[in-house]
């Protein structure tokens, strides 16, 4: 098991460094092509929303709604009301844990 763990860490290190390096090497140091600008500005909302949705409404490769979904929703309300992130996170965790304790 321990050898597997270290091989996994080594592999993850290499692939992460390569993936993070490819974009800057391919397109670095140039002016942004105007047509790419619109795409770049829209990438953040698309990618980040996908991360939220897949971690809120799914577990692994199955759709799954549970206590954490409610917790994240409560955290979201705090964020939409411009509350601090740390408060949103603590509430999300507390609601999730609370729901799990009573179900």
């Amino acid at each position, binding site marked *: 098991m321990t050898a597997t*763990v270290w091989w996994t860490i080594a592999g993850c290190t290499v692939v992460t460094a390569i993936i993070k390096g490819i974009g800057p090497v391919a397109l670095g140091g140039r002016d942004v092509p105007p047509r790419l600008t619109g795409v770049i500005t829209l990438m953040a909302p698309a990618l980040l929303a996908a991360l939220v949705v897949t971690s809120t409404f799914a577990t692994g490769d199955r759709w799954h709604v549970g206590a954490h979904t409610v917790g994240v929703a409560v*955290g979201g309300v705090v964020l939409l009301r411009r509350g601090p992130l740390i408060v949103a996170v603590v509430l999300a965790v507390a609601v999730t844990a609370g729901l799990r304790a009573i179900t």
Partner: protein
Amino acid sequence: MSSTSVPGEGQRDASLRAGFRAALPYAAVGFLLSMSFGILARDSGFPAEAAIVMSAIVFAGSAQFAAVSILASGGTAGAAVAAAALMNSRFLPMGIALGPSLPGRAAWRAAQGQAVVDASWAMSNRGDGTFDRWFLFGSTAPQYVTWIAGTTLGALGGDLFSDPSRFGLDAIYPTFFLALVISEVKDRTTLVIAVVGGLLALSLVEVAPAGLPVLAASLVALWGLRRGRAA
């Protein structure tokens, strides 16, 4: 030839400091998130030092969670690394977006690209297709420190929480990213893109390997080609 003027040292330091300050809430949440990673890694049979080293040299939350979960469920190192690569595949379009804002030779640009983490990348985006790289470096620094500190605490003190999900720690990750989405949604276009990107990813969850649904969502940003032409 570059269209942007070379920023002076004052400008650079101001960007570094602004990035550092802006990232503090994310660094605090990153601490909790990496603590839950440390706990999960120990539960999955990782020695404590392996969990800490992984956070220090991989430094990519979702990839680390994915890799550890796969080993925990009996998968091979190859499967774990492949899942990590897929989870990290979103850094490919992020790096392509960032690329033109990084100066220097190829190797130096690749090195600077290592500073990309989700929150830093999103916040250093100036909104006009360019990025403030000093802001990026400044905001990644505190997140890196708390990422390692949290992992260390979770890996060494993890016995206190034998079942992290019971304590609701799995709600941290989505809430963290929800804060980033909310800060990115500035008008109707970005709202629609976020909703469509999220739905597309969710629709692929059950049919595509982990990581691919999120990568696929970046395709929705191609809508920007149309907008660029109209402008």
